[in-house]
């Protein structure tokens, strides 16, 4: 497995968006989870997705790495059309990193092994190289000293930072965050958000589902508000918070900020 991208793809990389969704429809049985989603995410862009629970915001980002299949529409990630076949999905899964609400670290492996597994199995890098990469990213998320421990021995915030490091070890082009701080105790939220802010500064393309509106203000290029499977509003953070256009957006912002 070579990690170098073919020439055609490198050309495409410069001018195509990181993610394009066109007319995406998603059903769970008869429940219409995503309704006609059109969205384009530029390279290096940071998108924050918010909305009430059940609005389809997690489903939206889970479609980007095909954790969820869609019934209709096109999804193109990094110039590769996902909806065109399983081979393309294979390619994209390794280039899109994801961080989950419940961390989903592998409990039977040390932190280091968690970070080394995918690069070795999927990219075919050597053990030494995988370990060096893993330690580099553990350093970056500021927990190099925890490398030999098991996930259960770490705090929630530490576990989530390991999960971020684990995803970064695959050298992803896009990072997806599915409510990364929702399962954390309040005092641990900041350490995870700070890690994400660092990542954003380095130019990573990020799609983040979160209720942390402070993070959205500080980092987002655009904020998406979803409700009942639809994208209701997309705006820059200033505009979004100061002057929301839709009634549903105003109601939502009132609920999460007004006490």
């Amino acid at each position: 497995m070579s990690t170098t991208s073919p020439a055609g793809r490198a050309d495409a990389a410069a001018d195509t968006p990181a993610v394009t969704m066109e007319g995406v429809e998603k059903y769970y049985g008869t429940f219409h989870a995503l309704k006609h989603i059109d969205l384009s995410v530029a390279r290096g862009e940071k998108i924050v997705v918010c909305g009430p629970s059940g609005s389809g915001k997690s489903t939206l980002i889970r479609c980007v790495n095909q954790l969820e299949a869609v019934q209709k529409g096109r999804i193109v990630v990094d110039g590769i059309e996902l909806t065109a076949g399983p081979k393309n999905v294979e390619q994209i899964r390794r280039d899109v990193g994801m961080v989950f609400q419940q961390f989903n670290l592998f409990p039977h492996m040390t932190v280091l092994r968690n970070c080394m597994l995918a690069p070795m199995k999927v990219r075919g890098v050597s053990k030494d190289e995988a370990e060096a990469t893993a330690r580099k990213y553990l350093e970056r998320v500021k927990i190099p000293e925890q490398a030999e421990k098991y996930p259960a021995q770490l705090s929630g915030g530490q576990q989530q930072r390991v999960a971020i490091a684990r995803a970064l070890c695959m050298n992803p082009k896009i990072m997806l965050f599915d409510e990364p701080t929702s399962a954390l105790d309040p005092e641990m939220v900041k350490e995870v958000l700070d890690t994400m802010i660092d990542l954003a500064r380095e130019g990573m393309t990020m799609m983040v589902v979160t209720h942390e509106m402070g993070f959205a203000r500080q980092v987002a290029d655009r904020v998406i508000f979803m409700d009942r499977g639809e994208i209701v509003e997309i705006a820059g953070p200033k505009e979004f918070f100061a002057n929301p256009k839709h009634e549903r957006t105003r109601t939502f912002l009132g609920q999460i900020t007004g006490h």
Partner: protein
Amino acid sequence: MIRPFGINEALFIVEAIRWTLALSAVAFAGGAIGGLIVALCRVSSVAPLRYLALGYIRLFQGTPLLMQLFLVYFGLNIFGAGINPWLAASLALTLHASAFLGEIWRGCIEAVPSGQSEAAWALGLGYVDRMKSIVLPQAAKIAVAPTVGFLVQLIKGTSLASIIGFVELTRAGQIINNATFVPFKVFGLVAILYFVLCWPLSLVARWTERRFAVATQR
């Protein structure tokens, strides 16, 4: 001519334990391989494989082990393999164990949180690595107690092989009883020997279950 039930008769029975153990070991080893395949088919994303495995499990869980033994024993004969109690008993018990272990292990695989598979998927791991490195090692921990529990059932189940002429513990007891006519003593000894084999395993199963319960409470 009635023989007395002496030390030689008792030894004959005790020595037959090795055939009970050998048959159990073969059936368990075969059942472990078959059971893994059945379990993986049961949780497969390919629908025909799921239904095939389900049908197999239902068939073997819904018929008596004795019938399974008979069908394999006489079936082998029809298909030209001749009368061979060893082969028939091993094959029938392997098929039987595959179905039961397959169903037990399916449950263990499904008990691994779906987030684990999702994380593996998101990291780009393929099916084989996902199963081998992530799901099965975690399922195995859960599986120890019920698997040992089933092994006890399997050891006791080998006694049915005596009916097709396989000389193991039970059959040895029958042979001695036919010569000595002291059934209570003979089968009392046979029962004690089964108990000596199975009880420690039950203890192991209980102990691992408790240890697992402690390990998972957080």
